[in-house]
């Protein structure tokens, strides 16, 4: 009996031993842990599905907007390029030197006792300085003085503040009698006519042509100025505006490069007249700041 009890004890012991078999326990623990992990995975998968669904909605919305946005971006880029290109092209157009006004002024200044032989004008691409070399012959009792008169007139007519009139010689003490009006000049635009007597400029009495030039020279550009004149013995009031003649070019210099008497005399109205050959240098310097450099402008040559 005692032996039997002992055997039973061993059997219980073996059974207990089997129950705490680490492999079994491990498998149970693993299964439990696996189940927890699976649940966690399921929860994560659910959340991911929700986010994916949200993403697909956002993507669908974006798919509708994206072509419009891309088109808008391309258009904006194109517009920016157009604006920039137009700015550069406009600056090129504004920076051009206009030859027509110069040729017209030149034509207006040439007196019958003067003949131009050649003209060579050039605009430097680097600094935009325009230079003109003018060669001609003057014929008069004092041909050098005639050439100098031409230089002075040209200098006045090409300067920034120019009225655009040629006065009649021997004007009376009060006012200036207009002999000629330069086309497209401020005077021409204000309907100043040949024969008019200019009496007041901006409220100030005009005593002489040189005084008028001084008044014009100090007048602010693009300002309306009142001009009182007498036309056919009737007082007339007009307004004129002194405008920049060569946009972008504020400094104009006219000087002799060469002035020499010629041995040959010119037949002027059947009278042999002494002549002189002259070479004039004209330079149009751009407005300061428009270019970095400026060329040395020629100075007037001394006259006899």
């Amino acid at each position, binding site marked *: 009996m005692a032996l039997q009890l002992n055997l039973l004890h061993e059997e219980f012991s073996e059974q207990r031993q089997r129950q705490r078999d680490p492999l079994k326990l491990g498998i149970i623990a693993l299964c439990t842990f696996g189940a927890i992990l699976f649940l966690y995975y399921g929860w994560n998968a659910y959340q991911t599905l929700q986010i994916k669904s949200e993403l697909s909605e956002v993507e669908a919305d974006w798919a509708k907007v994206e072509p419009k946005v891309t088109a808008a971006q391309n258009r904006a880029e194109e517009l920016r390029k157009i604006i920039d290109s137009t700015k550069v092209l406009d600056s090129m157009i504004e920076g051009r030197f206009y030859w027509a006004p110069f040729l017209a002024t030149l034509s207006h200044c040439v007196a019958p006792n003067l003949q131009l032989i050649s003209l060579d004008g050039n*605009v430097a691409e680097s600094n935009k300085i325009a230079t003109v070399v003018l060669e001609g012959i003057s014929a008069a009792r004092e041909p050098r003085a005639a050439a100098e008169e031409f230089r002075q007139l040209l200098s006045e007519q090409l300067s920034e503040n120019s009225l655009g009139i040629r006065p009649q010689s021997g004007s009376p003490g009060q006012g200036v009698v207009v002999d000629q009006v330069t086309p497209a000049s401020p005077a021409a635009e204000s309907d100043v006519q040949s024969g008019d007597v200019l009496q007041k400029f901006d409220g100030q009495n005009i005593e002489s042509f040189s005084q008028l030039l001084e008044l014009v020279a100090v007048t602010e550009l693009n300002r309306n100025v009142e001009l009182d004149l007498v036309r056919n013995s009737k007082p007339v009031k007009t307004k004129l505006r002194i405008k920049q003649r060569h946009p972008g070019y504020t400094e104009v210099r006219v000087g002799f490069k060469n002035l020499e008497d010629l041995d040959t005399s010119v037949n002027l109205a059947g009278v042999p007249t002494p002549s002189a050959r002259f070479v004039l240098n004209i330079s149009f310097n751009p407005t300061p700041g428009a270019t970095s450099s400026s060329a040395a402008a020629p100075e007037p040559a001394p006259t006899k």
Partner: protein
Amino acid sequence: MKPTKFNKDQIQKTFLSILGFIALIYCYFTFFLGPLNKSRADATARIADLQVKSASSKTEMKKTANLEIQAKEATTRYDALKATTADGSPIAWFPPKMRNFFAAQHIDKANVRLESSTAFKQPELSDWIKDTWSIELPASDYDALGQAIAELENTEPLLAVQRIVIHAVPEDPQFQQVSLTAQTALHSQ
């Protein structure tokens, strides 16, 4: 209490269980939860990115609409400037155009030739080319020349006369020999 003693078999099984556990954890994080989390993170990032894009797109479209209004003048002007360039190669259409132009100004026998063709230095003008032309007018009246140049400067905004040489014709002082060097900006097609 007496500490439990594991036999050799039990130790082996425990070791195997630990290995299995490590393998399970590794597989779970590497092949299941890892990709899932990555996918979710990617989706979240993409949503955030699209939301930012969507929000900025409204501003972008508003800006473009404003720019369109602001650039209306520039666009019209640009189109007008572009329209000064005819179709085809400039060498084919520019010389006849100039000949016809001067003929209409009573200056005949204009001879036009291309001197050079280069690209502009300015990056804004990458679509434009700079051509230099030589225009010879063997016999021109001064007044007609002045009017022709005024007309040319007024009607051809992208043409700049760089050089002008006028010589009196000794045999016929009424006429001048004129040589012009003109630079044009032409749109390259």
